[in-house]
């Protein structure tokens, strides 16, 4: 088990290294930051002195190592848009909002999709199964931004049940969370359904039945415990896509999280902040997948003991 975790940690570090290279390269691919920092009529002397001050005249690998060294302590430089703040501080300030919204969206996805998937597997071919299939199909067809606007129009503008947008308590979070969750509900329902169908067909489920286990325990204990590995796998993807989804949905609902921050930072060519956001998203994604790997081992003893 310890070896398993150690291996996964090593993989995570390798992935992190690759990500830092990409993030570093990106900032150089989009043109010189000098052009963004200085006005158009800057003199050559000003350009040279800023280039030297920022260390942009040094070889790329030295720049990269400096970047890595600073990144290791969470230092991505100062924000150029939100003056007087470090980029990391700007991101950290917005983080709770994104985590709250993303957390609610994950919760909604899991609470809705798992029972929906399991029940439609048990009652396959029934009206319930078909309805769940339609919900899934719709979810996978609606783009999140469109769904967000439609939800806002129906439930906030027309019915007035929820505020249209902005930052606040639960009532502010429900519509954006649903807009983010629906696509995930669709994917997760389908995965859970097919995993359950496969497991319900196995010999060990048959043996559980013939030994007299009642149907509820057959499904939730014997079958679901085995089928769970599929939704657990998807959880890694889920966590990641809720962050990327947050970019769109936070913009639609003016929710002041890291997604909206990323858009603002890109518009303002605030590279340190963009870099911090990307690095943060990447680390979060890696951590989520590491958690998934550990969960695998918890769910399946064959992984734990190999």
């Amino acid at each position: 088990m310890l070896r398993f975790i150690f291996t996964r940690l090593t993989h995570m570090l390798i992935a992190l290294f690759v990500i830092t290279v990409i993030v570093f390269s990106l900032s150089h691919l989009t043109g010189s930051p000098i052009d963004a920092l200085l006005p158009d009529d800057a003199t050559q002397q000003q350009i040279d002195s800023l280039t030297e001050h920022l260390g942009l005249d040094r070889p790329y690998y030295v720049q990269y190592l400096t970047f890595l060294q600073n990144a290791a302590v969470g230092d991505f430089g100062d924000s150029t848009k939100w003056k007087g703040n470090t980029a990391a501080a700007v991101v950290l300030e917005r983080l709770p909002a994104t985590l709250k919204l993303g957390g609610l969206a994950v919760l909604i996805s899991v609470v809705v999709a798992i029972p929906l998937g399991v029940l439609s597997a048990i009652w396959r071919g029934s009206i319930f199964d078909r309805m769940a299939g339609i919900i899934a199909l719709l979810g996978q067809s609606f783009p999140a931004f469109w769904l967000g606007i439609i939800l806002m129009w129906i439930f906030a503008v027309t019915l007035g049940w929820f505020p249209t947008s902005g930052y606040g308590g639960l009532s502010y979070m429900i519509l954006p969370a649903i807009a983010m969750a629906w696509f995930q509900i669709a994917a997760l329902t389908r995965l859970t359904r097919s995993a359950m169908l496969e497991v319900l067909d196995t010999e060990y489920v048959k043996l559980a039945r013939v030994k007299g286990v009642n149907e509820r325990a057959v499904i939730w204990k014997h079958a679901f415990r085995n089928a769970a590995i599929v939704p657990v796998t998807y959880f890694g993807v889920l966590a990641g896509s809720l962050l990327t989804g947050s970019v769109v949905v936070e913009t639609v609902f003016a929710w002041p999280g890291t997604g909206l921050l990323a858009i603002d930072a890109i518009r303002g060519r605030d590279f340190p902040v963009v870099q911090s956001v990307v690095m943060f998203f990447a680390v979060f994604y890696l951590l989520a997948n590491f958690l998934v790997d550990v969960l695998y081992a918890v769910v399946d003893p064959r992984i734990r003991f190999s």
Partner: protein
Amino acid sequence: MSASVLQVKNLRTVLDLSSGSVPVVDDVSFDVGAGETLGIVGESGSGKSMTALSIMQVLPQPIGRIESGEILLEQTDLVGLSDEEIAKVRGREIGMILQDPHTSLNPVFTVGNQVIEALQINNPGTSRKSLFGRVVDLLKKVNVADAERRVHAYPHQMSGGMKQRVVGAIAIAGAPKVIIADEPTTALDVTIQLQYLELLRDIQEETGTAIIFITHDLGIVANLCHKLVVMYGGKIVESGTVAEVFRAPSHPYTEALLKSVPSVDQKVDRLYAIEGQPPALSADRKGCSFAPRCPYARDICTREVPQQEAGLSGGDTHLASCWNMGRDT
């Protein structure tokens, strides 16, 4: 032998396929008494496993259902019982051993856990802890070496033979009156097979349980069973005591099956095989389903279904369904 513990009467099980209702068990009747072992013999697709699944009522859903017939456990008809009622019969009254030990234990629970579960079902209200000692006893009873330690093992940490012993322990946990063993040794090594059969025999001697042993291996039947039914295309084509059927096989299919058993004393170039394929599932069948593969087939065989008649051995219980019996061969 005492009165029947389990009696199956005119059982007919169908699968509702898109092509129509296809009978997979057709007018099957047999009975088995306490301490008695009945062999059900046939090729893959002959309906022997479907018969077992019908008795347990774990037919493939939603397509499988019992259309008619009775399954009498002592005096109670199991056909038509509610889901809750039949769940109480499973494990407690009738235990079952499945074919492949590698897939029939749940990979995410320890074997001890899975045996405890079976014990708990049969002793509701008892704590897991108090049953722990009995799990070890059960595992010892089915000859699992080092049972105290193995209780905590997961299925993937055990060999096929060991796993099948655990499945056996689960089957006897509820002290059932009948054990259905569906090809329990097919997936095991030959040496382990023999040990396993001896184990079943020991369990039977100790508990007096009735055993229904499903197999395609007539060698095992000769060794283990008191009587047998031979199934083909969902029907029983021949039945009787082991002595009757082996002395005078009366259906060409039984004869062919017996010929297919390789003999140790005789050297042959080619092993005998029955020509052709078992019949495909179809809704409309005419005549004897073995006719297309039968070397003695006549006109009438493809037109009309043969009735059960006394077998060639002349024994009281020997029955076979063949148009040619005693007339031609």
